[in-house]
């Protein structure tokens, strides 16, 4: 097997769901009852046999460090390799404008030292918000056998004009990339969408970084890929199983609700030899009390349920009081919901308290979000 080091970007799309990232990185946004977004990428990395990972951070990364700890829950607490958090690199003499990076390429620049100290031959770059269960070995093998300079993972998706934040990748019959562009609000139909996972030789990445600093480039796709389409060999790797990418709070809501379908759960959680790991919290099993009525819902451990829950996602340690009805909602860790309350299309962040008898409702297209530690 080729030796590969992984690099994960933890803040890259923070602005997409500002409600959830006010206090945390995109990587540590809670997802699917008991996970944080980064768990999927980290598990994919580990399940593909990559045991050396750098996590690039930018700001607000305390929750992320708290989540990752020593990395032992992903089997990444290693004597050699293992997981390393790469804090933002600021020199004492940097001025206010260029002290922190803003794009992926600038982020990589700031960790040139990490990259050049690795001994692995290949490097895999991935965003933290790619919710999928993918075998990176296939991507890496495809990259090696094609002899390409960079291979990007893409997925065929139906794009409508109102979709933003996706990059569309066009390629020829051999899979060689001919164009990369941002969704322009005109195109609709099936397109190959960039999953923001790519693999290249580590030396190649070093050269890219040095060349980019010399030219003052900042965008990976526009400057590195876009400018070199003719002279370099960039290829696509097609991934075609479940994939969720979160570009807005509504996306976040829908992607969570996706998990109520068994096909999404099967392709994400029930893949042989590729479980998704997360930080162990040692919650007790969930208690269903007499009179509880729970249907079509995904529930984590540590909950105590007296009332009715339908079409909802309950995170660890949620308590639902008697005669309370929760429908179509996402209830995050340690939320306390009293008696006789009614919730519909609500997202509660961690540690929210909903008192007895409260009635709250949003809509599927505009879920009602309640910030962390709020008491309603």
């Amino acid at each position: 097997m080729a030796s590969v080091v992984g690099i994960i970007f933890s803040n890259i799309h923070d602005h997409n769901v500002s409600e959830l990232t006010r206090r945390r990185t995109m990587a540590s946004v809670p997802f699917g009852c008991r996970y944080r977004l980064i768990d999927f990428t980290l598990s994919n990395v580990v399940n593909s046999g990559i045991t050396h990972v750098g996590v690039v951070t930018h700001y607000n990364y305390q929750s992320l460090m708290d989540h990752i700890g020593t990395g032992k829950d992903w089997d990444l607490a290693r004597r050699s390799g293992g997981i390393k958090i790469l804090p933002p690199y600021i020199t004492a003499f940097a001025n206010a404008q260029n002290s922190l990076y803003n794009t992926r390429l600038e982020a990589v620049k700031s960790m040139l030292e990490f990259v050049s100290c690795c001994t692995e031959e290949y490097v895999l770059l991935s965003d933290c918000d790619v919710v999928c269960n993918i075998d990176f070995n296939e991507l890496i093998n495809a990259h090696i056998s094609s002899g390409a300079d960079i291979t990007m993972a893409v997925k065929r998706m139906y794009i409508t004009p109102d979709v933003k934040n996706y990059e569309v990748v066009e390629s020829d019959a051999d899979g060689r990339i001919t164009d990369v562009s941002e969704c322009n609000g005109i195109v609709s139909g099936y397109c190959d969408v960039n999953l923001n996972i790519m693999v290249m030789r580590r030396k190649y990445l070093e050269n890219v970084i040095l060349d980019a600093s010399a030219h003052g480039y900042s965008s990976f796709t526009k400057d590195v890929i876009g400018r070199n389409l003719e002279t370099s060999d960039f290829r696509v790797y097609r991934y075609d199983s479940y994939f969720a990418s979160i570009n807005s709070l509504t996306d976040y809501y829908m992607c969570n609700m996706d998990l109520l379908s068994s096909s999404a759960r099967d392709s994400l959680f029930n893949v042989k030899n590729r479980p998704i790991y997360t930080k162990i919290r040692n919650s007790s099993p969930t208690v269903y009390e007499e009179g509880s009525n729970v249907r079509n819902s995904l529930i984590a451990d540590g909950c105590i349920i007296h009332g009715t829950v339908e079409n909802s996602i309950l995170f660890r340690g949620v308590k639902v009081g008697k005669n309370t009805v929760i429908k179509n909602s996402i209830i995050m860790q340690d939320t306390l919901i009293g008696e006789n309350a009614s919730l519909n299309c609500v997202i509660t962040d961690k540690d929210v308290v909903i008192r007895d008898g409260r009635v709250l409702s949003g809509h599927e297209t505009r879920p009602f979000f309640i910030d962390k530690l709020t008491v309603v």
Partner: protein
Amino acid sequence: MIKKKECVAMLLAGGQGSRLYLLTQRVAKPAVSFGSKYRIIDFTLSNCINSGIDTVGVLTQYQPLALNEYIGNGQPWDMDRTFGGVTVLPPYQGQKRADWYKGTANAIYQNLHFLDKYDPDYVVVLSGDHIYKMDYSAMVDYHKRMGAACTIAVIDVPLSEASRFGIMNTTDDFRVYEFEEKPKNPKSTKASMGVYVFSKEKLYEYLIADEADETSDKDFGKNVIPAMLAGGEKLYAYPFKGYWKDVGTIDSLWEANMDLLGDRPSLNLNNPSWRIFSRHASNPPHFLGYGATVENSLITGGCEIYGTVINSVLSGGVKVAKGAVVKDSIIMRDCVISENAQVEYSIMDSDTTVGVNAKVGESKESGNGIALIGSGLDIKAGTVIPGGVRADSAYLDELLNGKEGK
């Protein structure tokens, strides 16, 4: 250099647990599943770490593979330490002799060199087959305060049941003057919980003497404690108030699981300040489909429920299909209950599949007792297994052949 530890725990986990029958065919009793996501030994190990005891020797003997693998480096209990942590102590072959552990006292005797390394002032001796939450550090403090040679934790049991336990007869200040194993006419209701604190010198002295005595059964309750009493040592009973259960039989295992249910369970697992730690399978969250009815039950990760689950405890990865009913039962890891099958008043070991329309066990009220179903079985569609039986693959074969014979 190894640092001295004030307190080291020795956990006796070698018992066969023969009264759990099929459940302990392939694993030692401490490794038997309990309470949806735990093993029995999790309670003792978690008590240790929650009491600040981070050095534990686990003495194994019977079917140690699953148990050793489960304990591993002790990481789930925060016992993967540079100094101390958990050490599995199997019987071994010495230069002069090779011996199985002949009794609880002999097991500790054979591992005195393990204790030597940490030079503890106090040794806590525990068994790995009880369900309870207890702060051992409070008991060690009591032991110090009393200036005892040995302190034995006791729990008040009803007088009618006292003859099933080892009973401590004490004076009003809890000094033990007599120990009676399963007395016919109990004089007290203070039952030994199998939790001992020894001052190290006294432990060494009496273990070495006990080893030399060829007539001894090398057992703490039978030999060492009576010898200490006879030697005039200060033995104290430490009264424990709270939940404690020996899960040595099928009935008590069932009861202890059921004690976790209800609005105010007798044993509350949901206590953030006294968490019970366990080794996790990376199961996804559990899912309840349309048509699921779950009442008064414990459910954990990986379960998929489309049928009815009432008064039951389900371990990880259990599937209950549409129309299936699980009632008053304990279902262990990765069992599958197919469409319209019924499971009532049963304990089902892991990886067993119950076929469509099959009926396992009888209602609790029938009085026929708990049906015990072995692991990895394939119970064919329509099979009827009555209450009170112990069903393994031989039993199923017989049942099937019997049918063909008709």
